[in-house]
C-alpha cells in the first residue's frame, strides 16, 4: 500500500533523513520507533506532503506521491494525525469532524462516517456543540483520530499520540488504535514509547539519526538484544 524507498528530506539547510526505506501493506499495524530527533516525525511529514522530499520515492496506492501537495495526498486516502494535532480549536467538535470529510461530497457517506466516529467515541455524539479548544488532552487526540477517520482513509498515520498524556489516557489512546486496527484500518504509528508500541503493532522499524537501523516483526524485536539494551533498559 505504502512503499518508501531511499527517502531523503530535511528543513532548509539541515538534512534530517538519509535514505529511509519502509513499507506498509494493507491491514498492517506498523510502528516506527526511535529516540528524540531520530527523524520519525520528518519521515511522516515527507510522506504526507507537508515537506517536500529531497530525494527518494514514495508510492501510495500504486501512485508516485513524492513532491505532490498534502491536500492532494490526503484525497488519495491518507490521513495524517500530527503530534500537535492541528485541530480547529475555535470550532465545534461537529465542525471539526465534518471538515475531516471535506473532500467527500456525498451527504449520505458523510453521515455514515459521522455515525462511525460517534460509535467509536460516544462522548463526541453528546458534545457535538462543544468547542474543540475546550477538550482535555486525551479527548483532543481522540477528536484528531476521529477527524482523520471521517475521510475513510486507506492509511492512518499517527505521530506520537502518547505525547504529554497521563499513563491511563495513553492506554486509552492505544486501545483506540488497536480497536481501529482490528476493524481493518491500516496504521503507521510513530512512537517513543517502545515497549507498549511493540506490544500492539505487527511490524516495526527502528530509526536512529535519520536512518532505519533495525526492522522486523514486533514480537521478535521485543527479544532483540540491541533494542533491549538501548531502549528497554535491560542489561
Amino acid at each position, binding site marked *: 500500500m505504502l512503499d518508501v524507498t531511499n527517502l531523503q528530506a530535511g528543513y532548509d539547510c539541515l538534512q534530517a533523513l538519509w535514505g529511509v526505506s519502509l513499507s506498509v501493506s494493507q491491514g498492517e499495524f506498523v510502528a516506527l520507533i526511535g529516540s528524540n530527533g531520530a527523524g520519525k516525525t520528518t519521515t511522516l511529514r515527507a510522506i504526507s506532503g507537508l515537506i517536500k522530499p529531497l530525494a527518494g520515492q514514495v508510492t501510495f496506492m500504486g501512485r508516485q506521491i513524492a513532491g505532490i501537495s498534502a*491536500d492532494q495526498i490526503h484525497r488519495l486516502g491518507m490521513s495524517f494525525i500530527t503530534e500537535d494535532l492541528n485541530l480547529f480549536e475555535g470550532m465545534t467538535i461537529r465542525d471539526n469532524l465534518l*471538515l475531516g470529510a471535506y473532500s467527500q461530497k456525498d451527504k449520505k457517506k458523510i453521515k455514515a462516517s459521522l455515525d462511525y466516529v460517534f460509535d467509536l467515541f460516544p462522548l463526541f455524539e453528546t458534545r457535538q456543540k462543544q468547542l474543540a479548544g475546550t477538550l482535555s488532552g486525551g479527548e483532543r487526540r481522540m477528536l484528531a483520530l476521529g477527524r482523520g477517520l471521517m475521510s475513510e482513509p486507506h492509511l492512518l498515520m499517527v505521530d506520537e499520540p502518547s505525547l504529554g498524556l497521563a499513563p491511563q489516557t495513553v492506554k486509552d489512546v492505544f486501545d483506540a488504535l488497536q480497536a481501529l486496527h482490528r476493524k481493518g484500518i491500516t496504521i503507521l504509528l510513530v512512537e517513543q514509547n517502545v515497549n507498549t508500541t511493540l506490544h500492539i503493532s505487527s511490524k516495526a522499524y527502528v530509526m536512529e539519526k535519520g536512518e532505519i537501523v533495525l526492522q522486523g516483526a514486533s514480537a521478535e524485536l521485543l527479544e532483540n538484544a540491541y533494542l533491549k539494551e538501548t531502549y528497554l533498559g535491560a542489561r
Partner: protein
Amino acid sequence: MDLNTLQNLLLTGILRGGLYALMAVGLALVFGVMNICHFAHGEYYVIGAYAAYFAHVTFGLNPIVAIVIAAILSFIAGAVTEKIFFFPLRRFNKGEWIMNAFLLTAGLSVALQNTFKLVWGVRYRGITQYWDATIEIFPGMAIAADRLVALGIAIAAILALWFFLQKTSTGRAIRAVSQDERGAMLVGIKLDRIYTLTFALGSMFAGLGGASLLSLTPAYPYAGVRPLISSWFVVTIVGLGSVSGAIVGGFLVGVFESLSYYFLGQGWQDVASLGMLIVLLLFKPSGLFGTKVKGVLEK
C-alpha cells in the same frame, strides 16, 4: 438634547455604520484568513462605485441590477488580483509574509488609483439618487430611500456571509484555514482556492459599499481613501481579523461618529475617533473583542 435629536443621531449613526460594517467585514476576512493587512481595500470600493455608475448611468440599468453587477465585477477584480499578485508572492515568499503582503497592498493601492485616473480621469462621476423617494421614519425625520436601501444591502450581505461561513462546507473550510492552515491542508482543503475566494469575497464587500452609496460619494480615483481609513479604524478597535467583531464595531463607530459630530462639531470628529482608538489600544491592545483564538468567526 431631546429625544428627537437622539433618535436622529442614532439613525444617522446606524446608516453610516452599515457601510463601515460592510467594509470592515471584508477587511477582517482578508486579514483573518490570509494574514494580509489590506491597504488597497478602498480601491475595490472605487471599482464598485465606477461599475455601478457606468451600469446605471451609461447603460441605464435598474439600480439594483447595477449594484449586483458592481458586486460581481469587484468579486472578479479581487479574484484576479489574488491570482496575479498574492499567489506568486505566497509561492516565492520566505518568511516575512505580513510585511511583504502589506507592502504589496500599499503599492497596489497607488497603482490602482493611478490606473483609475488614467482611464477615467479625475472627474467625479456621481448620481443625485438611485430612487427619487424619501421615507419618513419618525415624524419630522425623513431619509432618502438610497440610504435605507444601502443599509438594507449591507445587512443582507453580512447575513448572507454569516450563513455562508456557518452553514456551508466551503464556508467551514474558510474558517478552518483561518484557524490552522496545516490542519486545513491535512483534511484535503485546497488552500489556494480558499485564498482566492476569500480575497474575492472581501473585495466584493468593498465594491458593494461603493456601489450602494454612489449617491453619497461619487466615483473618482481617490474615493477609496476615506472608507479605507474608517474600516481600518473599525477593525483596529474590535481586534484584527474578527468578522463578528467588525459587524458590531461598524455600527458602534457609526453611532460614535454621529454623536461626536453633533457634540464636538465636524472639525473635532476625527480627533474624537482617534482619541478613542488611542485610549482603547492603551488599555486593551488586542481590541474590544480580541481573543487569543485565531479565527474569522470564532470568539
